[in-house]
């Protein structure tokens, strides 16, 4: 099966002006400026197939958004090749543009001073959505996201969550086959995050859409994506199933212990690395392969009331991934 999105050795370097601090620096910059080359994306390759939801994970400035901008044809790459739906994105062919959408949590396409409905009608005309399809889609989206009451209110008077829902509707009116979602849940409360996640899942299922999602909330990635790509300083450092990240990077399991009598720290340290301790409770990190054996030993040696063996949170694992990269 041909991939829907394909990147080959993609690079994007920016020349950035470095200003010296202070007033003197500002004056000096009038005749002499120093530039620095930033490698925002540095030799990234991957393929994505139809219907996949891929989580794009990376710290701030890792190159996630730059990659999405190249995939949507906003940025010209410094080198490398990209194909999305068989098109070169930066040819900006209308046939291509009608098949994808880019949604950014921190920017909007809605007309700020007008009701969202006006922007929907504008997109209907721009994407040449037939009347019947428009009414069907918009009614469905308005019900799914529960925004029927707010689409006729000026956008600037809406809350962040309401605006984000309307942004999604504006982006999906033409039923795009490819969706680039950049931090779609940023700044939203947990209830709203859940609503949007469920919605993205439902959209992917119904339209077989291919979705790339970047998010700081690992909950988004965990719930929506089977596959994750991790990038750091413009390099791809992992590409595979989320479970593989856990297998590959989570060297320890977490043993949460509750005691029926007080035990000493010293007694616990011989079983593993002690993370937390408060007399009747303790958390131990134990090598994955030894976890079951150590738990059995603790059960027989110590006065245990309860024991739990857990995987570390995905956040902690990702943090470990970046920390291990930083040390290289």
């Amino acid at each position, binding site marked *: 099966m041909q991939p829907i999105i394909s990147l080959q050795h993609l690079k994007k370097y920016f020349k950035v002006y470095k200003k010296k601090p202070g007033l003197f620096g500002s004056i000096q910059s009038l005749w002499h400026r120093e530039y620095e080359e930033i490698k925002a994306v540095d030799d990234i390759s991957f393929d994505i197939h139809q219907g996949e939801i891929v989580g794009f994970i990376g710290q701030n400035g890792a190159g996630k958004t730059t990659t999405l901008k190249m995939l949507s044809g906003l*940025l010209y790459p410094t080198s490398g090749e990209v194909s999305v739906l068989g098109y070169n994105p930066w040819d900006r062919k209308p046939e291509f*543009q009608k098949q994808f959408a880019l949604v950014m949590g921190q920017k909007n396409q809605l*007309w700020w001073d007008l009701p969202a409905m*006006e922007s929907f009608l504008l997109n209907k*005309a*721009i994407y040449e959505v037939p009347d019947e399809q428009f009414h069907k889609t918009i009614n469905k989206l308005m019900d799914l996201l529960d925004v029927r009451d707010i689409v006729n209110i000026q956008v600037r008077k809406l809350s962040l969550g309401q605006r984000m829902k309307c942004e999604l509707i504006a982006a999906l009116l033409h039923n795009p086959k490819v969706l680039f979602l950049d931090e779609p849940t940023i700044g939203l409360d947990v209830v709203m995050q859940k609503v949007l996640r469920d919605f993205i899942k439902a959209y992917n299922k119904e339209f077989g859409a291919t979705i790339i999602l970047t998010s700081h909330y690992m909950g988004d990635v965990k719930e929506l994506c089977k596959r994750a790509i991790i990038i750091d300083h413009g390099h791809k450092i992992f590409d595979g199933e989320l479970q593989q990240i856990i297998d590959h990077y989570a060297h320890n399991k977490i043993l949460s212990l509750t005691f029926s009598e007080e035990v000493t720290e010293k007694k616990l340290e011989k079983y593993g690395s002690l993370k937390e301790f408060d007399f009747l409770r303790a958390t131990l990190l134990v090598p994955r392969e030894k976890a079951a054996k150590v738990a059995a030993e603790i059960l027989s040696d110590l006065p245990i009331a309860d024991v739990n063996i857990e995987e570390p949170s995905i956040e902690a694992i990702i943090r470990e991934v970046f920390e291990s990269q930083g040390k290289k």
Partner: protein
Amino acid sequence: MKKYWQIFSISWQNGFVYPVSVLFWRLRQFLLTFMSLTIWTVIFTGHQQAFGYTQKDMIAYVFLVGFLQSVILATVLTNLGSDIYTGQISNTLLKPINLFATLAAQDIADKLKNFGFIIVETVILFLIFKPSIVFPPLTTLLIFIFSALLGAVLLFSIMLLFGTLGFWTPDTWAPRFLFYMFIDFTAGKLYPLNIFPPLLQKILFLTPFPYLSYIQTQIFIGKYTLMETAQNIFILIAWIVTILFLFRFFWERGLKEYGALGR
């Protein structure tokens, strides 16, 4: 075509979101022309002629040029440079629409919004200063309208060219500010350009400024022969073509540099 009509329609609605700002903006334009007409009325007090113009001719000139500049110089493209620099233009670049046509639709919506006000202002100024406007024959009037439209296209292309600065620098405001200052002195808004010494006039006519409203007014009041009219319109078109060519060149280079900041 429907999509550009929708862009026109939404831009029109957006233009009236802040009615007080619109009213004050129009008041400023009205007062500028009012001041100019008042100054010339005062200059001619006690004189029959000044700078080779009679009071009647001068008031008619300033009245006409004021009307014309209100129409030609009204544009929304003044924000193009900052829209590019801040990444706002990405919204348009991502969609299956022609950027040129989109900007034109927005500009026409803005011009038409202003046009209603300009008519009212013109009637008020007419009642106050009673300029003796003699309408030219129909052919001249049609040529005048055509040249005025070309003047609007010339300003549109100049603004597009200024906008491309946004690809390289956030300093898009300063050059535009200078341009508008030049317009005040060189496009014939405050006085007709033929009151200048011949050498200065020659230099001015090497720039696009006189083609933004001065030559159109001269066509209306019948100062040009048919040959001179044709020649001026030809130069006006040549300016448009040259500036659009430059715009295309810088636009294509700029897109390769575009950082799509923010968005």
